[in-house]
């Protein structure tokens, strides 16, 4: 048998490779008419050209769809060189549009691009704090921006800003005709800086000026209330799932326990979701054991996320969860787990139906892209995507109502009844009647409109 001599093989291979390279650059050398520069540039381009060759062979197999990056950069170059129309060629804007277009082709509204501004405000939401003065603003009937509520323990509260104060100027600039978003932008700023607000207050003849130092303010994610101190019916509303919400929820529960809590209503209406981790934390508080949610990875592999035992630091109470068509994502993880495990009763309307997990990937220039990377299933394996979760007791909301107002908030009133049945304070027949009424009413209930679906961000 022949033996390969490594000492000879290496130079031999080297020579073969050189022969290939020489062959590859030969056409350029022949065409260069002795110009050395073209030979060197030909050598430099060798790797790219070989790559093109490989890509080309692949592309031809795939029936030639357009290669994204090549087409995009070629068209961009073409625009930069020859475009002669209205509007400037702003590469960044063009690229952002191209990325948005590219993502739209995937037909998944949750896979989306976030420009630097959008990404920043999303981070603020998820972290649960921002730098500002901590006043919740709204627009009144006359189109003026007013303080709906100064949040407790914030610069606004300490400076003496009161509910219903109308803001007329920010840093001495009148804000008439400005959108509320623009006003919010003006009031916010880096921590430690000052902002001067001009305020009109009913009963005070002149404009009040307040100079307020901006600070890091936590979003209040949780609102709680003892609805019925006799029967111990507590109410916790969760606005969003972020890094702060579990701590705030824990505190709220502790406060309610001090007021003799016996049964709990968790309000997830209008909660668009948020962080997966926060959903697992909150879910763990109610689910005794097993998975809170099952993540189905790309490729089909199922990874259950189990209950966190350390979240079982409170007693368990009879539970009613309020949901509506805006309860989405993380809200559906929590309500789906509660429904599947039977630890609580869902009241309200069918939930939004978003069973996909997004991963936010930051990009080089401060923008980011949210990509749907996995599906999730409720503990018993249901995919609720585009289907939503049906409540146990269906209650349609009236056209106009004030959340938390027992006179107009029919869903809340019903959920108190349901809770009382669960606590043994009302007979079971009440629940049966409610269910019957819901069935009769469900025929005329309307489904969510497409515009509402499209508007839901998370």
């Amino acid at each position, binding site marked *: 048998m022949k033996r390969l001599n490594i000492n000879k093989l290496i130079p031999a291979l080297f020579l073969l490779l050189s022969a290939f390279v020489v062959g590859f650059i030969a056409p350029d050398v022949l065409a260069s008419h002795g110009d050395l520069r073209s030979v060197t540039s030909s050598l430099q381009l060798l790797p790219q050209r070989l790559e093109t060759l490989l890509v*080309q062979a692949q592309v031809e197999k795939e029936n030639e769809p357009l290669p994204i990056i090549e087409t995009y950069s070629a068209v961009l170059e073409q625009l930069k060189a020859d475009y002669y129309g209205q509007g400037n060629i702003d590469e960044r804007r063009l690229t952002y549009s191209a990325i948005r277009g590219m993502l739209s082709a995937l037909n998944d509204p949750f896979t989306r691009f976030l420009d630097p501004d959008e990404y920043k405000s999303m981070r603020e939401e998820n972290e649960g704090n921002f730098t500002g003065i901590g006043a919740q603003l709204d627009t009144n009937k006359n189109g003026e921006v007013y303080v709906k509520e100064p949040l407790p323990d914030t610069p606004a509260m300490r400076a003496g800003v009161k509910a219903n104060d109308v803001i007329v100027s920010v840093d001495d600039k009148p804000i008439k005709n400005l959108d509320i978003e623009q006003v919010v932008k003006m009031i916010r700023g880096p921590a430690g800086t000052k902002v001067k607000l001009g305020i009109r207050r009913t009963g005070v003849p002149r404009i009040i000026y307040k100079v307020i130092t901006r600070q890091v303010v936590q979003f209040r994610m949780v609102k709680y209330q003892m609805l019925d101190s006799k029967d111990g019916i507590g109410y916790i509303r969760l606005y969003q799932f972020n890094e702060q919400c579990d701590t705030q929820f824990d505190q709220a529960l502790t406060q309610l326990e001090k007021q003799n809590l016996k049964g709990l209503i968790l309000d997830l209406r209008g909660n668009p979701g948020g962080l997966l981790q926060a959903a697992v934390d909150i879910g763990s508080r109610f689910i005794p054991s097993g998975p809170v949610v099952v993540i189905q990875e790309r490729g089909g592999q199922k990874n259950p996320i189990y209950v966190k035992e350390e979240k079982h630091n409170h007693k368990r109470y009879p539970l009613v969860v309020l949901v509506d068509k805006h309860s989405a994502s993380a809200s559906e993880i929590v309500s789906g787990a509660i429904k599947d495990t039977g630890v609580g009763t869902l009241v309200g309307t069918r939930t939004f139906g978003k069973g996909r997990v997004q991963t936010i990937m930051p990009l080089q220039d401060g923008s980011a892209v949210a990509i749907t990377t996995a599906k999730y299933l409720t503990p018993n394996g249901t995919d609720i995507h585009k289907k939503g979760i049906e409540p146990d007791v269906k209650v349609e909301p009236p056209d106009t109502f004030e959340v938390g107002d027992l006179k107009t908030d029919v869903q809340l009133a019903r959920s108190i009844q349901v809770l009382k049945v669960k606590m043994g304070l009302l007979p079971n027949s009440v629940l049966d009647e409610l269910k019957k009424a819901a069935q009769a009413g469900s025929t005329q209930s309307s489904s969510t409109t497409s515009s509402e679906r499209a508007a839901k961000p998370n």
Partner: protein
Amino acid sequence: MHVTNNSPPSASAQNRALTEPYAHGNRLLIDTSRERGIIELAGQVIPAVFVTINGMRNYRALTFILLITAFFATGYAARIATIAHERSAIRQFSPSPVRTPGVPVATTHLESAGNIDLGPLEVMLTVLRSLREHFVDPITPSDEGRMAREALRAMLASLQDPNTRFLDPDQLKLVSEAMRGQYHGIGAFLAIKKIKAGNIQEEHLILVTPIDDGPAAKAGLRAGDDIVAIDGRDVLPLDPFQRASEVIKEERKKAIDKDVLRKHIESETKRIEEGIPILKAERMLTSEDDKELELTVVRKGTPQPIKVKVKTEAFFVQPVSWKLTDNDQLGYIRLGCFTDRTPDELESAVYGLKSKGAKGIILDLRNTAAGNLETVLSAAKVFIPGRVFAIEHKSRNRKVPIRVEQYPRDRVWNGPMVVLVNSGTARMAEALAVALKDNIAAKIVGEPSYGDPSSVTLMELRDGSGIAMTTGKLVPLRSPDYHGKGLHPDILVASNAQRDEQLNEATKLLRSMTRSLVSTQSGT
């Protein structure tokens, strides 16, 4: 090759010998004196080869040389293939052959290659890589093709230039069919125009030009009609929520009654849900055939929207027709559209008129639109051969004079001319009118034209889709720039539904022009 044993030197024997020389003991002896010659030859080319193979068995050296040659050939072939690929890539993004003569696209590529900002490209690449690696459903090649198209569509749309856009393969096909004189849909050139009303600026679907004998023209649709609804469904702008949110904001300012606001929101939602996106509407009207549609159009000077029934169909257009008035020997040429046949037909029309002794020509360019530059430059040769048609202003401050094709002098029309225009005279037709005015003092009669002298380049991509892009603006040689304003006629005559006043006025003018010509001729 010379082999000392008795077996014939067949290819298969040689093959076996090359692969397993010792295995069966049939050792081959090679006539070294002959082979050495080859080796020495190779050694002269690459001395290193010689050094290496000296230590080898001779037949191995031969194998090796064959391999070297094979690798060299493979490398050569590979490079030839990449050259072909690079050429086709350049062709892909170069203008279709009908474009402006002159500046080839490849050079402009190189000119701008120095200042490429890699930032945005990297961002795009990262997004794509992340999608490929992480998106919940694995991305297929056809997904990627669609993504590329949507990326281009969104990128070009963000420029908000109605002439710069992505074209799907079927839309690109319409362009080439129109070049052959075949039209589809309602038979009209449409444009998407931004119109500001109050606080909002929305895209409208404007009928620029009804094509001769097309369904739109037969149904009485006119140039400038704003198509607001199809079959009772509103044509929606690119961002339909802009209006809705504006309405809601306005209502909220004065809102006293929540019910009124809710009704507004409901009606807006309904309008948007039932409406047709403007790009889809454009497509319905230009590509779909054999459908009866009811269009609601808003026409200037008519207070109420007009409803018009029109049937979409595929039809061919006669690009040129002509006649000679009996009494005063005046020629009339109707140029309905610019197709491949237009230059030839215009040539024979002028030849016909000349041979019948026409004294003057009225060129009717009312409701004549589109066309590409090459066709017009060829068509114009019977009137202004070799002259400057217009100055094309291009990016990076380039100004390129564009010349009309040459044509034998004796066949050129050199009599007086009057050109008829109206608001449906668009693009190349306007450019032709003003070129005739600037070069041979043709008179322009009618209404101001559409006013879009953009020159648009079409590029075909390898998957059959395409890109239209504004690459320049045609500026008249002497007349003022008419961009956005429309070409102003020498004699302004409004259109009249009963009688063709514009044609009457043009005839009168031409008659006086021929007389003055006769008088100056007789005077000399």
